């Protein structure tokens, strides 16, 4: 039988191919647009500036239709978050989280009367949902439901690359594609356009129809750090922010992983040395 060493070599090769394959798995649509993110790779970290700009894009653009019910204002100021400050290790006391939350009026119940009211947000509130329920969201969006963005970067193949490509990928539909009113063509959207296509059957365009119109027009937001708000910049930043929001502990995970790996490799090396020593005098 093949030796275990060869098997491990084969397995490692397979692992490399698989990881590369997963990175390239760009769904059925077009290949993702070429871009790089600081948080990729085993030791990659989020770019703090990009996270803050991305939050601004979310707050000023996306949040008018998309909820992020799993993300709380306190998360913004926790370790690894966009507004973390070492001087305020408890995110609930962070002046940044407090100020950002206070700028949003959130629904609540008056404890005296039981009437529905709105009050200024606190770090303990999650991001305000733009619509009270799914029916209201659909009614305001031509029947389409804007998905919650809390884990969107993990819920789509390609993650941040997909978000970036989708947001910047809008272009004129190819001739022969019938785009219904209220829909838009996007080559990165999942879907099957065959039934909307009048052209040759072997040339059905990649991509799908999306109810969301293109959003990131130049200078749609004004970044506080003076970075020019080009559509590419905004898409890249908000993709970074959404990747962080989907897994806020990703940085902690990689840092812990590095320590775990070093420990395990030393420990396993010692075990190997012990094994060689104990078996030294046994013919086997």
């Amino acid at each position: 039988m093949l030796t275990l060493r060869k098997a491990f070599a084969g397995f490692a090769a397979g692992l490399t191919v698989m990881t590369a394959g997963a990175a390239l798995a760009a769904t059925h649509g077009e290949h993702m647009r070429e871009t790089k993110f600081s948080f990729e790779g085993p030791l990659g970290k989020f770019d703090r500036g990009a996270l803050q700009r991305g939050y601004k894009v979310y707050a000023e653009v996306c949040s008018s239709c998309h909820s992020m019910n799993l993300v709380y204002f306190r998360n913004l100021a926790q370790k690894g978050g966009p507004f973390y400050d070492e001087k305020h290790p408890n995110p609930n006391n962070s002046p940044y989280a407090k100020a950002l939350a206070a700028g949003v009026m959130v629904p609540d119940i008056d404890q005296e009367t039981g009437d529905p009211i709105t009050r200024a947000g606190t770090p303990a509130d999650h991001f305000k949902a733009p619509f009270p329920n799914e029916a209201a969201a659909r009614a305001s969006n031509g029947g389409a439901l804007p998905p919650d963005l809390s884990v969107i970067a993990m819920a789509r193949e390609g993650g941040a690359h997909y978000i970036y490509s989708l947001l910047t990928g809008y272009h004129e539909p190819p001739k022969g594609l019938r785009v219904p009113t209220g829909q838009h063509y996007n080559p990165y959207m999942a879907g099957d356009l065959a039934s909307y296509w009048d052209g040759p059957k072997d040339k059905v365009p990649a991509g799908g129809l999306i109810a969301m119109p293109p959003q990131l027009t130049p200078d749609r937001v004004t970044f506080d750090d003076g970075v020019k708000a080009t559509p590419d910049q905004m898409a890249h930043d908000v993709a970074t922010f959404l990747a962080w929001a989907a897994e806020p502990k990703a940085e902690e995970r990689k840092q812990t992983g590095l320590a775990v790996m070093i420990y395990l490799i030393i420990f396993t090396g010692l075990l190997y040395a012990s094994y060689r020593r104990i078996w030294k005098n046994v013919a086997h």
Partner: protein
Amino acid sequence: MSGPSTYEPKTGFERWLDTRLPIIRMAHDTALDFPTPKNLNYWWTFGGILAVCLVVQIISGVILAMHYVPNADLAFNSVQRIMRDVNYGWMIRYIHANGASMFFLAVYIHIARGMYYGSYKAPREVLWILGCVIYLLMMATGFMGYVLPWGQMSFYGAVVITNLFSAFDGIIPGLGTAITTWLWGGFAVDNATLNRFFSLHYLLPFMIAGVVGLHIWALHVPGNNNPTGVEVRSKEDTVPFHPYYTVKDGFAIGAFMILFAWFVFFAPEALGHADNYVPANPLATPAHIVPEWYFLPFYAILRAIPDKLLGVLAMFGSIGLLFVLPWLDTSKVKSMRYRPTARWFFLIFIAATLGLGWCGGKLPDDVVIAVGRDETGAATGFTVVWLSRILAVYYYAYFLLVLPLLGLTEKTLPLPDGISSPVLSKGGAAVPAGATASPEKKG
């Protein structure tokens, strides 16, 4: 268990306990002094690795259950709360999720090792069958665990797998429907299904632990098989389990943990599916429902047959065959080291099973070898479903034709006289003339 006990109580307390509950004696005889063949290679370390996997899954699972909410409306968000707000919750969940994959990886290697070295043959049939029972329980546990996060793939995985039983309507009308309704606890996969899956997912690992106890007991009666397949003759052939195999298994476990940790910390979603981060929605079926990688070969066998009932039977049958393997293989020689022809059939069997796994992850109509193009320009030719059929036929033929017939006709290599002789000659073929063992005389 194997030979008289060598335990000698040293302290007064040990003597007192030994006459009342000889538990230290049992631990000493099974885990410390147990005579183990000295020629076991690294393929034998996966038993220890699997024990560690089970413990890791139970500990991480018990902690997850402290935070998880088994309710159709709350389950998805409770998993996210574990990831976001529970201290090291992300680590515990990633350990548990990737731990399942590691567990199956190790069990497949463990099963393949048993098949190659003939570890299922007399006197180890019961040991082998108990292993098959553990594997079945693992599959049930893994499947139900994957349902618990209540994402799209969880939900539709549960729908597809439970619906398999409706195929039994083809035997007795109404039987399959009754079984599925009973499994669901209603008329669709819903909250009742999630609740019972959680309950069973918590129960089954302890049943696995129980059967593992029996598996080890059944191992310690005949003792380990070994790469030569020749039974232990004398004390010269063995070393005490401790420290020789505690250290060798320990090293292998450490190496395995490095791989495990690589997945947990650097590629925790590599084996998962993005759709499972979309909350379950009974009204929106995902475009492509795929099970976890460790079920893919069986999924491919299921889809290879157009008739649902036959497909389901073929799928269960492919696992059922493992249970009767000891009686399908007619060769008296255990280790395929001395069965050069069987070795090739075995390697093809492994390749066929991996190929089935590849097919299970593709759409049945995906083209493997393009021959032409249809009017829409899509490639036509040899499709995944046909490849699955060929591979599934080989899978079955390996058990039902190759192993029964080959054992009667093949020419085997001369067996070594004992474990120590090939060890000393560093090979196996070099055996003193006339010493060739007659395989039929061996247990």
